[in-house]
């Protein structure tokens, strides 16, 4: 096709002889311009086109008066037309066959609105109405369903947009649980992440309709499990793994700050965003989430991603999400789950086999289910074994299959092995490289794999106290893209403290229990009760007191924090912030709700009092490099934080104001008063010291100071408030006292208490953190890591899922040309990543193309393939963050020898802009070459909408996407 283009004879070659009706002459001329074999209309009665002339008699103005076109009257208006023709004509829309979206679709409950499962029976165009705001959500399709209910894709005319609405089953238990999700997400969204930078799904609205709680979320795209599946269960490229890891960590850091445990992190609950240019993911499904201080349930987390402590029935913290995160990262790389345990026994067996070692004795000593999986083989001193759990030195030995069978009177279910090499090192390093990868690139990728391995080691760590926090993990070279030279040692988040200072701890009610000391945190039984408390009974309680029943819990937190750098004070801080669950959202809660609702509302009031800055101040800190050392940033008020970032690209703390404060007064006070103070002082009794202790001193020293100052203020305030507190519990610190306060009010009934105590709790807080208004000061991730998004600058907005993934692929492709040029080692390594990913992705797209013939492919894949408008070339801008040379220098041990990899740490890798090989992805499309017949082959797995089908077997509800 061809030779003649329109312009050849359209307008130009026949300069408009206007009404040349004479067909012969014009037709001959048109023939002259035409190549014979192709048919063209001759100009006989038709004449050449002339742009519309405004010559008075405008036909269309006439038409306005006239009736609608026949075609409209026989389609859109056919009923009217028929009634005109025959007044007796009747048509009733209600007789139309309905497309049911819910199965079973027989109404047996709730006046016929619900099916036997208590699910609202949805049909296409069913309207879910928020009766308060009159906003209507028109159901267009089902996105997924689960035990909680259904998720529907809904159209909102007012906003001209689609949302995902979770429609909860009409049963009190689910209802209550969903309320928890609402309050947790609302808090996370509004309080901690108002600017939506932490990759957590947004909640838009919620209401009760037909006795079903409906929660509207932003509509997202496909989930990571589906993405892996689209890739035929081959691993994703390391650069994508890195990108996702970074984003997930941002979310996890926020959740940790907020003291929220997701409890069901898995690839299915991480979704791609729609039409975002840099690939972005979001964490969804907070339906199992809980406050860190209210870990009520023991049976949580999907099995493959279940942490050892949960499996063993031990108390848990946000660290369990980090375990799951580690499993996810591994799965993204491997394409298959790391621990696909067919049973809990199998799960544990795999962990032990793959990771080596086993859970530390201090956990086994206390965990409820230890006896199910371990036998006691002798008492070894707890103190020592706790820190170095190997089966040799442990007092416990894992049961063999036979032993398990004897003990449990049934054979353990054991799944098959995916990986032949059974330890983590081998699994990662021997994972097949993509075909045709140049030797050089293999070498590079192997380096990155070493970083990945080191990264995973810090995440899938048996000891929750040693497992890295989100903040710590986010500084890992694998995430930052810095060259990986030696095993990463995160700066401790809760530094050790001289004993002298430690004394304070004991004043604490439940405070000073170190895990590491082998004294199991006497967490006051709180966690022990979980088992007996059935899910839903607990909830109302949880709600009212909400975040309330902290007394003992809080202490648990502290303990954990002490031992492990886990329950950092940030958490406590968050607790405070979290007191504001539902309220601040401004959402309308539609009041069918029953008693539970009241809880939140009282909370609301409290919350209002909380300074906004509370949560905010916390979160950004996590990602600022400087906060690494002590996680003090959590206490850094936003203002000071802002100063730091603005003042010092080089991660130096701000000069004076903060520091001045620090030094000025507070130290004494601090030590005396507040618990966290104490902790802080532990690590760094003086600011001067702190510098020495930190691995990369210049980062941390000053921030630490800044923190001090804050603490000081906070403490003093708190102090005052403490004294006011009637509660016996509260003697020590604000944080603690906050907890205490809540614990008092924990009972659902004590609304009074709640309010009053919260006042106590809050006021000082407000003062302490008055400065904030932090949000604007939050650095864009790009500010400190240019690598953040440019890498995946996608070319077009495409709301289509698949295109999303294919976009990825595309963008990744773009990295390819980079490869050779850069002299720096670091740079090269980086290249290898991108390069790797590109070829990887091409595989993927070719996979997509093959689908043409098969039945499986979903249309979105197809689409991905067909994206034809190639536009601007994305830039692949690898940019190593200016690494802190000091860190590299300091690391004494080099576990791996990768010859040259080590040096040139600070090499500044300036942005390399690369033109993408456009054609490569264009041609990747399955049907580009396709003949006429092809399209049919591929269409199958596609439901009526253009959304990928709901084949997410293993997840609850698909993407809330």
């Amino acid at each position, binding site marked *: *096709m*061809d030779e003649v*283009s*329109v312009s050849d004879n*359209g307008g130009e070659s026949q300069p408009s002889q206007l*009404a040349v009706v004479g*067909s012969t002459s014009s037709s001959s001329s048109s023939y002259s311009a035409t190549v014979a074999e192709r*048919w*063209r*209309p*001759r100009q*006989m*009665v038709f*004449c*050449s*086109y*002339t742009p*519309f002339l405004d010559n008075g*008699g*405008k*036909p*269309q103005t006439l*038409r306005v008066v*006239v009736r609608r*076109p*026949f*075609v*409209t*009257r*026989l*389609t*859109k208006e*056919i009923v009217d*037309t*028929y009634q005109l*023709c025959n007044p007796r004509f*009747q*048509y009733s*829309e209600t*007789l*139309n*066959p*309905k*497309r049911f979206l819910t199965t079973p679709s027989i109404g047996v409950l709730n006046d016929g609105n619900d099916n036997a499962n208590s699910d609202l029976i949805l049909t*296409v165009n069913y309207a879910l109405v928020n009766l308060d705001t009159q906003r209507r959500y028109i159901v267009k399709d089902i996105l997924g369903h689960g035990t909680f209910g259904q998720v529907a894709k809904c*159209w909102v005319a007012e906003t001209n947009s689609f949302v995902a609405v979770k429609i909860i089953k009409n049963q009190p238990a689910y209802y209550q649980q969903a309320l928890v999700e609402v309050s947790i997400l609302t808090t996370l969204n509004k309080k901690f992440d108002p600017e939506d930078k932490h990759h957590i799904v947004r909640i838009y609205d919620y209401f009760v309709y037909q006795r079903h709680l409906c929660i509207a979320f932003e509509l997202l795209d496909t989930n990571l499990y589906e993405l892996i599946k689209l890739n035929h269960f081959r691993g994703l490229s390391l650069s994508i793994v890195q990108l996702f890891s970074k984003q997930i960590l941002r979310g996890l850091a926020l959740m940790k700050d907020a003291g929220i445990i997701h409890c069901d992190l898995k690839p299915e609950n991480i979704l791609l965003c729609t039409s975002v240019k840099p690939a972005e993911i979001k964490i969804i499904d907070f339906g199992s989430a809980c406050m860190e201080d209210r870990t009520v349930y023991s049976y949580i987390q999907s099995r493959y991603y279940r942490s050892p402590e949960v499996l063993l029935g031990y108390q848990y913290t946000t660290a369990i999400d980090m375990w799951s995160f580690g499993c996810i990262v591994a799965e993204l790389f491997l394409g298959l789950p790391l621990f696909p345990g067919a049973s809990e026994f199998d799960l544990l067996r795999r962990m032990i086999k793959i990771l080596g070692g086993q859970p530390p004795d201090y956990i086994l000593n206390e965990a409820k289910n230890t006896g199910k999986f371990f036998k006691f083989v002798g008492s070894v001193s707890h103190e020592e074994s706790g820190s170095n759990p190997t089966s040799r030195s442990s007092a416990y030995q894992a049961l063999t299959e036979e032993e398990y069978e004897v003990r449990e009177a049934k054979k353990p279910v054991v799944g098959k092995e995916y990986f032949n090499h059974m330890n983590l090192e081998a699994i990662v390093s021997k994972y097949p490289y993509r075909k045709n990868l140049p030797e050089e690139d293999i070498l590079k990728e192997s380096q990155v794999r070493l970083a990945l391995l080191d990264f995973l080691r810090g995440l899938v760590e048996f000891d929750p106290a040693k497992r890295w926090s989100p903040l710590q993990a986010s500084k890992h070279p694998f995430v930052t893209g810095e060259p990986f030279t030696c095993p990463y040692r995160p700066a401790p988040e809760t530094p050790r403290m001289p004993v002298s200072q430690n004394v304070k701890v004991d004043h604490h009610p439940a405070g000073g229990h170190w895990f590491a000391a082998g004294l199991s945190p006497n967490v006051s039984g709180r966690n022990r009760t979980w088992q007996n408390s059935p899910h839903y009974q607990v909830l109302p309680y949880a709600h009212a007191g909400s975040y309330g029943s902290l007394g003992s819990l809080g202490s648990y937190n502290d303990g954990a924090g002490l031992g492990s750098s886990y329950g950092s004070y940030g958490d406590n801080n968050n607790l405070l912030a979290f007191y504001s669950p539902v309220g601040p959202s401004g959402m309308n809660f539609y009041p069918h709700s029953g008693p539970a609702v009241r809880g939140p509302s009282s909370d609301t009031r409290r919350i209002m009092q909380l300074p906004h800055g509370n949560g905010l101040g916390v979160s950004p800190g996590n990602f600022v490099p400087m906060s690494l050392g002590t996680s003090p940033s959590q206490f850094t008020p936003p203002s000071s934080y802002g100063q730091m970032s603005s003042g010092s690209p080089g991660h130096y703390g701000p000069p004076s104001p903060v520091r001045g404060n620090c030094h000025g007064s507070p130290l004494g006070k601090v030590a005396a008063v507040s618990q966290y103070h104490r902790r802080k002082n532990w690590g760094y009794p003086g600011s001067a010291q702190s510098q020495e202790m930190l691995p990369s001193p210049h980062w941390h020293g000053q921030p630490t100071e800044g923190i001090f100052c804050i603490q000081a203020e906070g403490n003093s305030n708190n102090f005052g408030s403490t004294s006011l507190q009637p509660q016996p519990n509260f003697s020590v610190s604000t944080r603690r006292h906050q907890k205490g306060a809540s614990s008092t009010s924990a009972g659902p009934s004590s609304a009074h208490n709640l309010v009053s105590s919260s006042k106590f709790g809050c006021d000082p807080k407000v003062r302490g953190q008055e400065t904030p208004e932090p949000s604007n000061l939050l650095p864009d991730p790009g500010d400190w890591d240019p690598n953040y998004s440019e890498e995946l600058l996608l070319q077009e907005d495409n709301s*289509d899922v698949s295109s999303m993934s294919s976009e990825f692929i595309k963008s990744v492709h773009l990295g390819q040309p980079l490869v050779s040029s850069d002299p720096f080692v670091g740079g090269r390594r980086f290249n290898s990543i991108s390069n790797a990913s590109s070829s990887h992705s091409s595989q993927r797209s070719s996979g997509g193309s093959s689908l043409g013939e098969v039945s499986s492919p979903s*249309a979105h894949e197809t689409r991905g393939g*067909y994206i034809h*408008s190639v536009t601007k070339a994305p830039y692949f801008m690898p940019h190593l963050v200016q690494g802190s040379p000091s860190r590299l220098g300091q690391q004494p041990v080099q576990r791996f020898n990768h010859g040259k990899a080590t040096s040139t740490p600070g090499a500044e890798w300036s942005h390399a802009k690369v033109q993408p090989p456009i054609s490569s992805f264009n041609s990747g499309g399955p*049907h*580009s070459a396709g003949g006429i017949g092809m*399209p*049919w082959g591929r*269409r*199958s797995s*596609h*439901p009526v*909408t*253009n959304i990928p089908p709901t084949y997410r077997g293993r997840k609850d509800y698909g993407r809330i996407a």
Partner: protein
Amino acid sequence: MDNSSQEPLLRSENSVTYDCPYPIYSMAFSSSAASLPRRRPIAVGSFIEELNNRVDILSFDEETLSVKPIPGLSFDHPYPPTKLMFHPKPAASLIKATDLLASSGDYLRLWEVRDSSIEPVITLNNSKTSEFCAPLTSFDWNDVEPRRIGTSSIDTTCTIWDIEKGVVETQLIAHDKEVYDIAWGEAGVFASVSADGSVRIFDLRDKEHSTIIYESPQPDTPLLRLAWNKQDLRYMATILMDSNKVVVLDIRSPTMPVAELERHQASVNAIAWAPQSARHICSGGDDGQALIWELPTVAGPNGIDPMSMYSAGSEINQLQWSAAQPDWIAIAFSNKLQLLRV
């Protein structure tokens, strides 16, 4: 409207005009060249706001350039027919030397067109109740598998009939709103457009799913007509209600039209692909113009101009391009049928 400038045309050897006693909406060319020599049948259906409407079979003589009614070949039709269509492969028809005509309206009806008479063959009614019926907005006869006719209805469904057996092969809830048009691509593949603003493709081998290949930018902007390019099945065209646009789709690139043809001065009412060329399409609209377009390989910045135009002088309600005589396009405006040589 000023018809005078067109008058000479109507006498030329390149066009013929026929005046009906009624406004015409539906119209169809017969594809049976052989069975009725020198009498190329064209069926026209009335648009009268009464229950009684009419279908007439006209004969078009290409040599004498005349269009005449054929005596006896006429029948009453309840409601204005929404579409008329002759059997796509009359040679394969069961009854030799006769032609089959289908019409849609309240029901799908088949008519046997004999030399001098028309007999109703069957009325295909898929309605569950007697009181109500969901009118059919259109239908399409499968030219690969002529026993199949698919109808589109405002009850959101498409029904596939096996006309040889006179039974419903399948009925699909095709859209979320009324379905306005349907077109076959292959023996088991059809597409439909709807008030929900989408173009969906269905494959009878997998009735659970469909593929949306286009959605109007504003959801729920009705798509009224659909034309599938028989020369190159990758392409189809659709028109939006109250829009001067012809949207050309490439099914390989869903959601993104390959072209939007926007040179009509008022709403487009009808479209037809050239039967002999993969790249040409004709559209007619309320501006009284019929425009022939060639799909460019690359669209210019200012959009696409049609190759040629014809002004009918009145709103064009129907447009058909004869498969048997590809040199002729028929348009219907007011009560006129006009054949135009291209």
